[in-house]
């Protein structure tokens, strides 16, 4: 209190006490006592002198002597009154400028208390106090209430709902007075609530020795009953501030909530116990603090109570519903404010709240939501900064206290009945801390049940809690009850002096540090040095606590917990999530710019670098650019990379927000689909710009849509893959380290860099894409793009079928038949040698011949019914006549295939002539080919660099050349889709499907599977399983 104010107060005291008969000794003593409380001894004298001067103390004695001229005296007196009134007004205005309403009410009560000291409530004095109350803007009825509370000596004269008595006698029937039973007590303890400022005053009318905060209470004196205070009567139970407040609030239309915890135990995945035998029982409207040394398990307790972690033993019931097993019943009841910020950094304060509200209240109009948001913002003093971006810790836009309040606001807006707050004051200034706890206190008074983990609270904050739950290392509960009592309990337990006093006599401060000093007191060794050993082990404290403490079990409330939450439909949730995400993304200009510029820039650089002009060409010709096959691969890798990197951080970034929103029971699929919408759109834009620029520069004509569709598909696949790892791993760094692990196999198994035929024999079989590569989107997309670019271009599309026939028939005639004949010759010569080993080789050869004949279309068509001959090929019935029959059959088929070859070649030529004729004047076929066909790609598709064109492996003849023309055989298993790499058609369900369509379908199917895995978080579960096993193993060591 400033000197100025104290002076003003002194004057007020003086003015009041000098009215109507002047200062009594009692009043003067009261003032002196008050000064002593506020000031040091030297200054007290100074102020007493001041008081005496203003109140004419000592001068008064002379006045009765001059009683001759009564009228003069009366006139003078009136004059004094007017003068005093004017002065009072002046003083009050001065006070008005500096003190807040609460303090003014306290001043007012002090004035009344002054009168109560000697109980001389004269009209003059009352009038001045009345004036003061008017100037202070104290509501009249409240002033009247305080006045009558001070004046009346018994509660029977007071009939007001803001009056409460703590007595052994119930107030009469029909009285509005509230009552708390005190046990046997002389007189009564009367409380009054000043509703507008939330203050409580009390006075005692009896003669028993009772203590307020361990200080004896004088009969009739008016005292403030501040938070954390406790009344102790000789016979009955103590009365705590919180009990009083909840009694006052009991008729309020608050939601009825019971919160019962039975023997809760929590085990960490590695087997350590985090909580032991926690029992709590609370109901509506309490603010409960959780304290403990660091590592004692405070946050674990909070998380377990909130249902974020499942306990290994015990249960938590809210209104009788188990929060772990009956989650649906308590939906929206629990709110959780984590220690970290759970804000969306790129949205404004308002947007953060607005979208949160939107997710909580289905059916509310925009105006209603806006109103609600603004109300919450105002009540938390955040309305001024509502349009500021939240920013992050490194790029601060709003202060720490504001962030914390916003975090709380996010939970408040949906009004959960039970709120858990983890260290709301950490990192905040003491002022901000107090504001935050004030806010929580206010909420609890409104009927919320609030659990707060708190660390090193100041005295004021500490006293604001209704209950304190103390924990010791190893998850042992060691105290549960009134906060101030905790100090007393531990002082007593450790045998300290003045153990009865929880708080300081004079200032009322509590030192919570004391508690931990006692709990963690260390043993001193013989040299006076502290050792590492504690005097009292956590176990012992726990035992002690269990012996002393009897839990007052609150009854379970039988009704369903109140629910304000109205969750929107899944579709609406998706829309809200998507809009919120979109807004957040577009407000981050850096992110947006990089994502949009990345693709076209890469395309530009890449395409310009590989725009190669052949040495014979005058200008760039697409056909002669040898880099096209590599370009296709790079396109795919770029799409994969962009898709992965853009999505890899998505869920990690949202993880905190997801943790908060877990209590809303929002739909995961809505969340994921909103992510997909945003990411797929971004991928669509990125790949489109990439294709347009890359293909334009490289003059790849007419294939943009085809390219885009493949790259978009690949990018979407990578998006979902990225979301999977984002969901499974817990830091962005880990995820980015993982990206190469995902990309490099895609590169290696794309089929371009390493020939599938030349991989480790364990995984690959010649003439077939290895199964391991079938899991790679790169292989499917590369094949799709390469095949489609080769056969779907304007030139090749006309002649592809004929070239295919040429290739098939040529292969048969030029390679297959000679190979078969070679096998026959080899078999014959092997059989001539007539020993067992050669016989086995011959048998193997015959097996190949047999299976090849049965696959050969000519044989099948020509031999209808005659096929038995070929089925019967075996070492037993093979002789010279069979050999020559087979040989001539092959000769026949050679004629057939040759004829087909000639026909196909000529047909192709006719098509080309027609194409030539259809071209416009001045154009020729060559230009068409230059524009649409690429030599290097053609060479890749025909595998023309292969030295061997045919090979025998695993009992069959394998075609190595012309993979694009080779028709994969239809397997007996309809699900078998396997074919050689770059096949233009895929067998599936007894039909052939175009590779482009088939491969895209495969990638989308894989993407869908990844989505399922994402939805159920399989990867995350797998990793958790794995880490559990490894941590246990580590522990065992």
């Amino acid at each position: 209190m400033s000197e100025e104010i104290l002076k003003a107060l002194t004057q007020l005291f003086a003015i009041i006490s000098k009215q109507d008969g002047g200062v009594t000794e009692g009043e003067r003593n009261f003032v002196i006592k008050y000064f002593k409380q506020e000031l040091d001894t030297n200054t007290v004298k100074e102020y007493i002198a001041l008081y005496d001067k203003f109140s004419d103390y000592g001068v008064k004695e002379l006045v009765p002597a001059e009683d001759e001229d009564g009228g003069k005296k009366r006139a003078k007196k009136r004059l004094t009154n007017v003068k005093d009134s004017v002065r009072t007004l002046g003083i009050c205005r001065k006070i008005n400028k500096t003190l807040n309403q609460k303090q003014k009410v306290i001043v007012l009560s002090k004035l009344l208390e002054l009168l109560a000291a000697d109980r001389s409530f004269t009209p003059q004095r009352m009038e001045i106090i009345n004036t003061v109350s008017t100037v202070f803007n104290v509501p009249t009825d409240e002033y009247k209430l305080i006045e009558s509370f001070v004046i009346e000596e018994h509660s029977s004269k007071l009939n007001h709902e803001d009056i409460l008595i703590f007595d052994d006698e119930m107030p009469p029937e029909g009285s509005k007075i509230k009552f708390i039973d005190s046990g046997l007590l002389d007189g009564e303890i009367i409380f009054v609530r000043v509703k507008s400022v939330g203050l409580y005053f009390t006075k005692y009318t009896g003669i028993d020795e009772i203590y307020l905060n361990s200080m004896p209470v004088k009969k009739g004196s008016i005292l403030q009953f501040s938070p954390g205070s406790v009344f102790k009567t000789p016979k009955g139970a103590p009365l705590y501030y919180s009990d009083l407040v909840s009694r006052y609030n009991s008729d309020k239309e608050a939601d009825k909530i019971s919160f019962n915890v039975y023997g809760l135990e929590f085990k960490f995945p590695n087997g350590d116990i985090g909580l032991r035998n926690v029992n709590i029982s609370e109901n509506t409207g309490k603010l409960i603090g959780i304290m403990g040394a660091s590592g004692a398990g405070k946050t674990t307790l909070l998380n377990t109570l909130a249902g974020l972690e499942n306990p290994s033993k015990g249960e938590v019931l809210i209104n009788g519903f188990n929060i772990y097993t009956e989650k649906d019943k308590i939906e929206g009841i629990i709110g959780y404010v984590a220690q970290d910020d759970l804000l969306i950094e790129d949205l404004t304060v308002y947007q953060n709240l607005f979208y949160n509200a939107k997710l909580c209240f289905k059916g509310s109009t925009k105006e209603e939501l806006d109103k609600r948001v603004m109300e919450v913002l105002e009540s938390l003093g955040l309305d001024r900064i509502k349009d500021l971006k939240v920013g992050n810790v490194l790029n601060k836009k709003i202060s720490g206290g504001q962030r914390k309040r916003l975090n709380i606001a996010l939970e408040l807006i949906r009004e959960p009945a039970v709120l858990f707050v983890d260290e709301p004051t950490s990192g905040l200034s003491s002022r901000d801390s107090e504001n935050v706890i004030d806010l929580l206190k206010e909420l609890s008074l409104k009927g919320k049940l609030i659990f707060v983990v708190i660390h090193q609270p100041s005295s004021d904050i500490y006293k604001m809690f209704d209950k304190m739950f103390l924990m010791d290392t190893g998850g042992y509960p060691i105290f549960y009850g009134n906060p101030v009592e905790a100090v007393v309990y531990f002082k007593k337990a450790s045998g300290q002096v003045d153990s009865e006093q929880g708080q300081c006599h004079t200032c009322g401060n509590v030192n919570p540090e004391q508690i931990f000093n006692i709990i963690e007191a260390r043993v001193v060794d013989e040299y006076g040095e502290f050792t590492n050993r504690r005097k009292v082990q956590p176990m012992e404290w726990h035992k002690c606590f269990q012996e002393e403490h009897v839990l007052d079990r609150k009854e379970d409330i039988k009704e369903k917990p109140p629910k304000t939450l109205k969750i929107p439909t899944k579709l609406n949730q998706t829309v809200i999530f998507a809009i919120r995400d979109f807004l957040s993304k577009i407000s981050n200009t850096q992110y947006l710019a990089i994502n949009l510029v990345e693709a076209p820039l890469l395309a530009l650089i890449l395409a310009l670098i590989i725009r190669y002009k052949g040495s014979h060409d005058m200008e760039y010709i697409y056909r002669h650019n040898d880099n096209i096959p590599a370009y296709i691969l790079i396109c795919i890798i770029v799409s994969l990379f962009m898709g992965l990197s853009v999505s890899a951080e998505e869920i990690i970034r949202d993880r905190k927000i997801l943790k908060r929103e877990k209590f809303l029971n929002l739909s995961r699929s809505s969340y994921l689909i909103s992510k997909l919408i945003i990411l797929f759109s971004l991928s669509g834009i990125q790949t489109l710009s990439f294709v347009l620029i890359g293909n334009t520069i490289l003059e790849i004509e007419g294939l943009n849509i085809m390219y885009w569709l493949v790259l978009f598909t690949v990018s979407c696949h990578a998006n979902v893959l990225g979301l999977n790892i984002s969901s499974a791993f817990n830091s962005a760094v880990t995820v980015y380290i993982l990206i190469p692990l995902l990309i490099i196999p895609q590169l290696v198994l794309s089929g371009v860099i390493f020939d599938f035929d030349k991989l480790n024999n364990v995984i690959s079989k010649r003439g077939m894409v290895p199964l391991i590569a079938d899991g790679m989107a790169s292989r499917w997309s590369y094949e799709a793009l390469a095949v489609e670019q080769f056969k779907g271009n304007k030139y090749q599309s006309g002649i592809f079928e004929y070239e295919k026939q040429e290739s098939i028939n040529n292969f048969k005639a030029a390679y297959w038949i000679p190979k078969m004949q070679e096998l026959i010759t080899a078999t014959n010569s092997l059989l001539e040698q007539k020993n067992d080993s050669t016989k086995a080789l011959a048998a193997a050869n015959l097996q190949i011949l047999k299976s090849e004949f049965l696959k050969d279309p000519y044989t099948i068509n020509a031999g209808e019914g005659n096929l038995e001959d070929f089925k019967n090929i075996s070492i037993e019935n093979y002789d010279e006549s069979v050999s020559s029959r087979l040989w001539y059959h092959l000769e026949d088929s050679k004629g057939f295939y040759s004829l087909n070859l000639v026909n196909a070649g000529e047909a192709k030529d006719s098509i080309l002539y027609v194409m030539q004729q259809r071209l416009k004047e001045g154009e020729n076929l060559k230009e068409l080919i230059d524009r649409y066909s690429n030599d290097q790609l053609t060479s890749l598709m025909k595998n023309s660099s292969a030295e061997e064109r045919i090979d025998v492996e695993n009992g069959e003849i394998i075609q190595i050349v012309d993979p694009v023309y080779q028709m994969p055989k239809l397997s007996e298993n309809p699900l078998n889709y396997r074919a050689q790499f770059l096949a233009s058609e895929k067998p599936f369900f007894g039909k052939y499907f175009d590779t482009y369509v088939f491969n895209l379908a495969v990638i989308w199917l894989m993407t869908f599977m990844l989505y399922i895995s994402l939805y159920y978080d399989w990867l995350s579960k797998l990793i958790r399983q794995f880490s559990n096993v490894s941590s246990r193993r580590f522990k065992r060591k």
Partner: protein
Amino acid sequence: MRNLYSIILSITLLVGCGANNASSSESPQQLAGSVDPVQEEASAVDDDIINDILQSIPSPLEISLLIKEVGSVYNKADLNDPGRVSNYNTNFDKALNLGIYGTDLGYSNIYNKNQDALNYLNSVQNLAEGLTIGQFFDYATLKKLAESADEDLEALLRTTTANFEKINYHLREQKREYLSILLLTGGWIEAVYLTTLVHNRTKNEVLKEKIGEQKIVLDRILLVLDVYKTKNGFGELITDLKKLQSIYDQIEIETVYGQPTMVEKNGVLVVVDNTKSVIKISDRDIDSITSLLKSIRNKIIK
């Protein structure tokens, strides 16, 4: 050389008959059903005759050797540009130009121009692949020969000839003789064209006579080409060559018969045929042949 030819001829005849048999036997018409049925050409001339004629057309390499003997300087610009290989897209074009490149390959090889030879080798391989006859090309050996510095002409001629023979043989076997004749025609045109070029510079009488001699070859070529005149592209080529033929028609070749004599050569008795052809060819004829051939060739190599 001639011996080699005769051996190949006999093999060809043998297999040719076999192939003939095969085609006449019952064969299912369609394999995969997607090829338009193309009517089988009814050959007006017997296959054997065609083969006979094909065999009698001299190897372009002989002319190349002759040119080198005359002492002409190698001129890269005289040959077709190997980079033009991508211009040839139909089987017709591919086959004709494969012939032309074959001659150029041999020519550059004879002059030991290794890089050029390798370029032609690439083009040759490219076209051969396009015609699905790449496998008969001993690319590795040819490359080795082209890269080696020593002039192993004998090996070169042997390999090149063997390759072309193999290709011809394969094409015939697959009943694609029409490609064979195009291959030979292309090779022949390039060889004669080079001869006219060098003759133009040197006015060498041997070359002049060589050009005149081609009358007989041209007649034979046209005879075979005529068989396939309904096929795409053949019509134009035949027309062009007929124009050339009309110039050649003005040339007279007189055969002066002489008695064969026996001469001892390296201790072996060899029969020498003393019959000689006398070719009456005017410079004007040569000029018009030169210019017409140039235009025909330019049309082919585009």
